[in-house]
């Protein structure tokens, strides 16, 4: 039974990757466009980072957009002021988000439940207002402009990811694959199992000799690094960094994607992001109140499928 289960898992995994690899071929004929796929990957990675905490450690951060936004500003500022290199921008964006998370995490992990969520919102908003007010550096309300992603330079040849959207999609997919692999690797490790232990029963975890606060801090910091990276990709995608990307409503969107897709599953948040992005793209061209429809869908999913969309698909296929 175990082997069959693993075989099925492998098939599903292969299916997901084939689907992702072929996006530039099947998306346009279905009425979409490749950049939409890129957006799904970037926001999906962000939602997976939130879920790294929410679904696998059991703590809800409502301020993760802060680290997403810091990643975006880090990448933008790096391209604008430091060097015309996309990879350096990604690295610095990730470091900015991750280090900010590591620092604030020391204060945040002392709280639990509602208080944890409140403190994460509060710290998140601090960054929002900094980006909003410090116009000379960040462009304030207008956002950070005046940079664009640079070709990938490998010495002998370079790849154009600026004007060729397919190339950029594959570049983002490559980055996404690495991050997803690292995430999956951590979750399968002994450390990853202590995260599950904390999610399942904090008291039991503590009385197994796990220093719970320290482990939550590590998980929090790791998720902020992933978040910073996703944010940096987002800045490259838009050639723009927006203070709204730091706002707690953006955090709420990420949580929504994770919960809608299924927070107990690794790929759920990616599905959630896909639904969110596609609905946004389609509905926002029909009505300005597109968010109401996403909201109704969200409520319906939470009420009727608490395990998320992927949870339903799984149950159906197991029955």
């Amino acid at each position, binding site marked *: 039974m175990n082997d069959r289960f693993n075989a099925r898992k492998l098939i599903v995994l292969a299916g997901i990757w084939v689907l992702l690899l072929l996006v530039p071929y099947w998306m346009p004929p279905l009425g979409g466009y490749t950049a939409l796929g890129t957006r799904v990957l970037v926001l999906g990675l962000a939602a997976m980072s939130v879920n790294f905490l929410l679904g696998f450690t059991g703590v809800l951060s409502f301020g993760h957009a802060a680290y997403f936004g810091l990643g975006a500003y880090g990448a933008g500022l790096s391209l604008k002021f430091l060097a015309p290199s996309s990879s350096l921008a990604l690295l610095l964006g990730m470091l900015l988000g991750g280090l900010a998370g590591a620092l604030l995490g020391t204060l945040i992990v002392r709280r639990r439940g509602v208080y944890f969520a409140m403190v994460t919102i509060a710290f998140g908003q601090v960054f929002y207002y900094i980006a909003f007010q410090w116009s000379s550096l960040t462009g304030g309300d207008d956002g950070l402009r005046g940079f664009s992603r640079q070709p990938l330079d490998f010495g002998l040849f370079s790849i154009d990811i600026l004007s060729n959207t397919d190339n950029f999609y594959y570049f983002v997919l490559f980055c996404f694959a690495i991050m997803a692999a690292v995430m999956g690797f951590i979750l399968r490790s002994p450390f990853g199992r202590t995260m599950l232990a904390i999610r399942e029963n904090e008291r039991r975890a503590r009385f197994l000799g796990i220093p719970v606060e320290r*482990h939550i801090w590590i998980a929090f910091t790791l998720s902020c690094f992933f978040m910073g990276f996703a944010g940096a990709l987002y800045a490259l995608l838009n050639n723009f960094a927006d203070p709204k990307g730091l706002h707690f409503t953006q955090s709420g969107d990420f949580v929504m994607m994770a919960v809608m897709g299924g927070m107990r599953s690794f790929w759920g948040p990616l599905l959630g992001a896909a639904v969110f992005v596609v609905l946004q793209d389609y509905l926002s061209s029909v009505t300005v109140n597109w968010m109401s429809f996403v909201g109704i869908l969200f409520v319906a999913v939470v009420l009727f499928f608490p395990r998320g969309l992927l949870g339903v698909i799984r149950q159906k296929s197991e029955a």
Partner: protein
Amino acid sequence: MNLLEVRNISKTFGKLVAVSDVSLAVKPGELRAIIGPNGAGKTTFFNMISGFLRPTGGSVVFDEKDVTALPAHERVTIGMARTFQITEIFPELTVRENLRIPVEVAAGYRLSPWLSKDTDGEIRASVAHLLQMSGLTEKADRLVGELSHGDQRATEIMMALALKPRLLLLDEPTAGMGDQETYDITQLIRRLHKDQNLTIVLIEHDMRVVFHLADRIMVLAEGKMLAEGTPKEIAANEAVQAAYLGKAAA
């Protein structure tokens, strides 16, 4: 030499005195039962030993080391493991995963990003051994939350045991169990005590279990120690009988 020494420990919650000036000494290999009527302070006393609560007075000494100020998770590291009155397990993980986590933590791998093939094999073997000892092998890949109360209890005890403790603290191990389950758990505790010479302190309401297992018994009533001695002495003690019959202990 005593493995565990509790010296004149007290705990007050505001004006309520939950435990007052209680001492206890447990020798290596001993099985000590703590009994007493409801509200006697047994669980509070227990929580101070395991580090769940900080005492307002007195000290806890484990293996000649004062652990009164040590956080709970560090007491686990030096060899104290416990179970709870209401079973504390990882309900949405399988029995195997429930046991694997303490095995890995006790072996010092809680922060490891990966394990070598050899280490992984050793850990699997330890888990398999624990499963076999508890008779849970056939249910190893089921979620613990789906199992019977008795099996959940057994899992929790094995999780504590996976830590290779020198002192096992069990808070009402047979609470809420039927006759058969009570018998099974009692046999399991007896095996751990007799075969592995494990030092155990347990709180228990079921007198059949207490008199079957304990080397010595301590009786608490209204936060104070009422009596202490072998099962025979306790059975003959008039103050204890009075406390259990609800009369004034005087």
